[in-house]
């Protein structure tokens, strides 16, 4: 599932255009993004606060089993890496 500060409408557009079937959640006030300590203050080109890229794989109890915090916004977690991590879940 994906989370950003985008509105549900923007996320819906993205989902439809890209053909995504996973849920996309909106955190317009970055409340959850702050709770997860991922706020990138003034990070967007128009200097609004956004989420930094980060990925968490949780097991069925909600415990983090795998994380990825990129050092460079151009370098993102690969789908293969995330799938491999997911396959390792009990």
């Amino acid at each position, binding site marked *: *599932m*994906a*989370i*950003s*500060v*985008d509105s*549900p409408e923007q*996320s*819906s557009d*993205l989902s439809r255009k890209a053909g995504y079937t996973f*849920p*996309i*959640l*909106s955190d317009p006030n970055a*409340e*959850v*993004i702050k*709770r*997860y*300590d*991922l706020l*990138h*203050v003034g*990070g*967007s*080109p*128009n200097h*609004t606060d*956004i*989420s*930094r*890229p*980060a*990925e*968490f*794989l*949780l*097991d*069925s*109890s*909600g*415990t*983090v*089993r*795998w*994380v990825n*915090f*990129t*050092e*460079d*916004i*151009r*370098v*993102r*977690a*690969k789908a293969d890496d*995330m799938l491999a991590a*997911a396959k390792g*879940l*009990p």
Partner: protein
Amino acid sequence: MSQPSPALALRRSNRAIWIGVIFVLLGVLSNFLYFIHLPGQAVFPWLGLSLPAVGLALLLLGVRRAFAPAQMSRNVAGSMLFGQPQVYRGKIVGPILTVIGALVFGLSAWGFLHARAIPASKHAPQIGEKAPDFTLVNTSGQSVSLAELLSTPIDTASGKAPKGVLLIFYRGWW
């Protein structure tokens, strides 16, 4: 057709300038690597920074050569016959390409610093910790909580809770 000037013919081609240009161009092209499905992405930013840096260094070397006075022993004939003090070519094209190379390097360095100026997220959930629960709206405007996502079966036929949940926080399109 005009004959090439004998003075120019005597001067050596300034290869450092052209190799520098190739490095700068490779640096620009390396930005497209992110769009190709390739492993080892973490090194791409370093390529994007170092290729133009090497290119600029070679360009500066080439320009220095182009403007360096000839040593008598090296080009004694040229200096005496034509009064040409330079051994290497590239007095005009060198500075132009070096300015372009410097601009490319400047942009690459700015992009490098900008792309890596992201918060450290020291207090983000780490491996072994419980991810904090939350409730957010999905694209249909419905509230969804993490607890629900962890317990609601995806495969309704089996009725089993999912093995896990992958949370992807992304920058968004604003």
